[in-house]
C-alpha cells in the first residue's frame, strides 16, 4: 500500500511536468494545426538558460526561473516569426518538416554551445528546501514530508505539483476570462473569419507560442532539478508529452493536462510494477489503445480534416 501511494505521487509529479509540456503542443496545434516539434527543444533551452543565468551570471534561482521563461517565450515567438509565419498558407506538410528542421537545429546548437556532457544545477545555488537527501546515519530525510509506510515526498516534488496545478488553472482562466484568451479561442475556431472580425491573428499566434514556450521552459527547469540537463532531454520528454497531447485530443487544453497525468502515471506504474526496460513503451500502448477506441483522443472533437 505504502509503495502504491509513493508510486502514485511519483506518477503525478512526472505527469504534471508532461502536462505542462503537452499544453504547449496542443495550444499551437489548436490554432494553426501545426505539430511544433521544436517545442521539446524549447523545454531543453529553458533548463539550459536558467542554468547559464545561475552559473555564469550569478543570478539567484528565483529570478533566473522567470527570466528563463521570458527568454524562452521570446525564443518561441522568434521561431514562429522566422520559420512558421512565412509558411502560414503553405501546405501543412511544409510547416511540419520545417518544425522538425528547427528542432534539429536547436538541438545541435545546444550541443555546440554546452557540449553533450550532462549538467546539473549546482546544489549550492538552489534554495535549500529544494534539495533533499537522506541522512545516512539516521535514515532521516531532509526537506521532505514523510508518507505513511516509510515513503517520502520531497518538498521539491510538492513545489512541482503545486506549480503545475497553479499554472494550469491560470492558463485556463486566461483562455476563458481574458480578451486575448477569447481571441485565441476565436482563432482556433476559424482563423480567416477571426481575421475578418479584426483580430490580429499573427499577434494572437505569437502570444500562443510565447505562453506555450514559457510553460515548457519552467517544465525544463523542474526536470533539471531532479534529473540532468542534456541537449537531447527535450527529445525524450517531448515525445512523451506529445503522446499525452494526442491522448487527450490534440488541440484541447484540458485534454492535454489530463493526458499528461495519464501518461505520467502509466509510465511510473509500468516501470514500477512491470518492467523498467519498457517504461515509455507502456505509455505508448495506452495511448494507442485510446486512439484506437477514440481516434480524436479523450477530449478531441472528431472532424474530418484532422491528420
Amino acid at each position, binding site marked *: 500500500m*505504502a*509503495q502504491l501511494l*509513493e*508510486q502514485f505521487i*511519483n*506518477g503525478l509529479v*512526472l505527469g504534471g511536468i508532461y502536462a505542462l509540456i503537452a499544453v504547449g503542443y496542443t495550444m499551437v496545434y489548436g490554432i494553426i494545426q501545426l505539430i511544433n516539434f521544436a517545442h521539446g527543444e524549447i523545454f531543453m533551452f529553458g533548463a539550459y538558460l536558467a542554468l547559464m543565468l545561475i552559473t555564469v551570471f550569478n543570478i539567484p534561482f528565483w529570478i533566473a526561473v522567470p527570466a528563463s521563461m521570458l527568454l524562452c517565450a521570446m525564443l518561441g515567438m522568434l521561431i514562429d516569426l522566422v520559420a512558421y509565419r512565412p509558411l502560414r498558407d503553405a501546405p501543412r506538410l511544409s510547416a511540419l518538416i520545417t518544425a522538425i528542421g528547427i528542432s534539429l537545429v536547436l538541438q545541435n546548437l545546444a*550541443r555546440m554551445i554546452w*557540449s*553533450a*556532457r*550532462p549538467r*546539473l544545477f549546482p*546544489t549550492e545555488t538552489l534554495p535549500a528546501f529544494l534539495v*533533499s*537527501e*537522506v541522512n*545516512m546515519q539516521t*535514515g532521516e*530525510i531532509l526537506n*521532505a514530508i514523510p508518507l505513511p509506510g*516509510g*515513503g*517520502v515526498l*520531497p518538498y521539491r516534488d510538492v513545489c512541482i505539483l503545486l506549480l503545475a496545478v497553479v499554472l494550469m488553472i491560470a492558463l485556463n482562466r486566461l483562455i476563458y476570462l481574458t480578451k486575448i484568451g477569447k481571441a485565441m479561442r476565436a482563432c482556433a475556431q476559424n482563423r480567416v473569419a477571426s481575421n475578418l472580425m479584426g483580430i490580429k491573428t499573427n499577434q494572437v499566434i505569437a502570444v500562443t507560442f510565447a505562453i506555450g514556450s514559457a510553460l515548457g521552459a519552467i517544465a525544463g527547469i523542474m*526536470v533539471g532539478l*531532479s*534529473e*540532468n540537463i*542534456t541537449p*537531447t*532531454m527535450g527529445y*525524450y520528454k517531448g515525445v512523451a508529452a506529445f503522446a499525452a497531447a494526442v491522448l487527450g485530443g490534440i488541440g484541447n487544453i484540458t485534454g492535454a493536462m489530463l493526458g499528461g497525468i495519464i501518461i505520467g502515471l502509466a*509510465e*511510473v*506504474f*509500468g*516501470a*514500477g*510494477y512491470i*518492467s*523498467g*526496460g*519498457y*517504461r*515509455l513503451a507502456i505509455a505508448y500502448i495506452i495511448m494507442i489503445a485510446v486512439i484506437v477506441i477514440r481516434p480524436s483522443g479523450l477530449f478531441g472533437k472528431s472532424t474530418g480534416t484532422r491528420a
Partner: protein
Amino acid sequence: MRNWFVGLLIVGFVSVLGCQPQDKKNTSTTQTTQKELKVAVAAPYTGSAAAFGEMIRRGAELRQKEINEAGGINGMKLTLLFEDDAGKGSEASLVAERIVNSPQKIVAVVGHFNSTCSLAGQEIYDRVGIVELSPGSTAVEVCERSPWTFRNLYHDGFQGKFIAQYIDNVLTDIESVAVFFDNDDYGRGLRNAFVAEAERIGLNLVASEAYERDSTNFKAQLTSIKAKNPDAIFISGLFTEAGLIVKQGREAGITAQFFGADGVDSPDFLTVAGSAAEGTYLTTPFTFGAGGTEAKQMEANFKALHGVTPDTWAALTYDAVGMIKEALEKTYNAEASIEDNRKAIREHLASLDTPEEGYEGVTGLTYFDINGDTVNKPAYVKIVKDGQFVAAEKQLRELK
C-alpha cells in the same frame, strides 16, 4: 531569371565541394602509402558516454605523440582517425562501414568502448578482416563471437563474479542485494554474471530492476527496490545513469550501500551524483595506485599534455595503441596488400597467448586466450571518499 542564377550558383558550389575530396585523396595516396600508418580509434565522443570517449581520445593521442616523437613505426608516422559511435550500436555499424570502406587504408581499429558498439561493429570488421582491439567492452560475447576481436581488460563473466564475492566476503554486513541494470548488452550481461554467482554463493537477491539507456527518471524503479529493503544495490550500467540513480535514490530515502562496476568509473559520475556519491563502491580493471613506474611516468606525461589526470580508460587505450604499434612494427610490409597486413596484425595479437609472449604495458601484462580475451588481469575496488575515487581499504585478490 533570378531563380536560374541561384540554381546555377548552387550547382557550381556543390560541384566545387564535390571535387575537393577527390583531389585530396589522389595526392594523399601517392604521398603517404609509404610514410603513414592509419589506425582508427572508435569510441563515444558524443552522447551520454562522452566522458569515456574524451579520455580514450586523450590516451590515444598521448601514445601517438610518443610513438611519432620516437621516430614512428619503422620510420612511418602513426596517424589516428577518431571515429564517433555516440555509444549506440546503430551508429557503430555506420562507423564500422566508414572505416572498412575508407580510402585511407586503415590497418586496425582500437575500440569500440560500449559492448553494444563492439558487437555491432565486429559484424562488419569480420567481413573485411580487420582487428578490433577494445579498451573497454566487457560483455562476454564480444570476444567469443569474433576471431578478429581482442580486448586488454577482463570480461563481465569475471567482473560479475568478482563483485558478488567481494560483497559476500568483504562487505560482510550485507545480507541482501538488489540489482538495477541497464537493459543493453553490457548491463544485462554483467547482471547475469552477478546473479549467477550470487545464487551460487548464497547471497540473497531480493530485486532485479531494469532501465533503458538515457533514462533520467528512476524514481519508479527505486521505489520498488526500496520496498524490498535491500542492504546493497548493485548498479550494472554506465556513470550518467548510475549518478542519477544514486542521487535520486538518496532523495527517495534509500540508505542501502550502492555498488557499481567499471561502467561507473568516470569522474563524471561524481559530478552527476554530487554529495550522494559518497561511499559508493565500484570495480575497475586498473588504478594508477596499483601501477608500476611506467604507469607513473605515463600519468605525468598525460598531465603535461592534457592538463588533467588520466583515468582507467585513458591507460587501457594507451596500451591498446601500443599493442597495435608493436604488431605493426613486427609485421607491416609495405609491399604486401592491405588485406594481408591487416591479417598479419591479427596473427601477431593471437600469438600473444602466454605470459612470456604477452605485452607489458602500463596496465600490466596483457596476453590473450583462444577467444582474444585477457584473463590474467585483476579487478580493483574503489570507493568514493570526500568526492574522490580512492582505492578501497580491502581488496579481493583471489576468487573462489
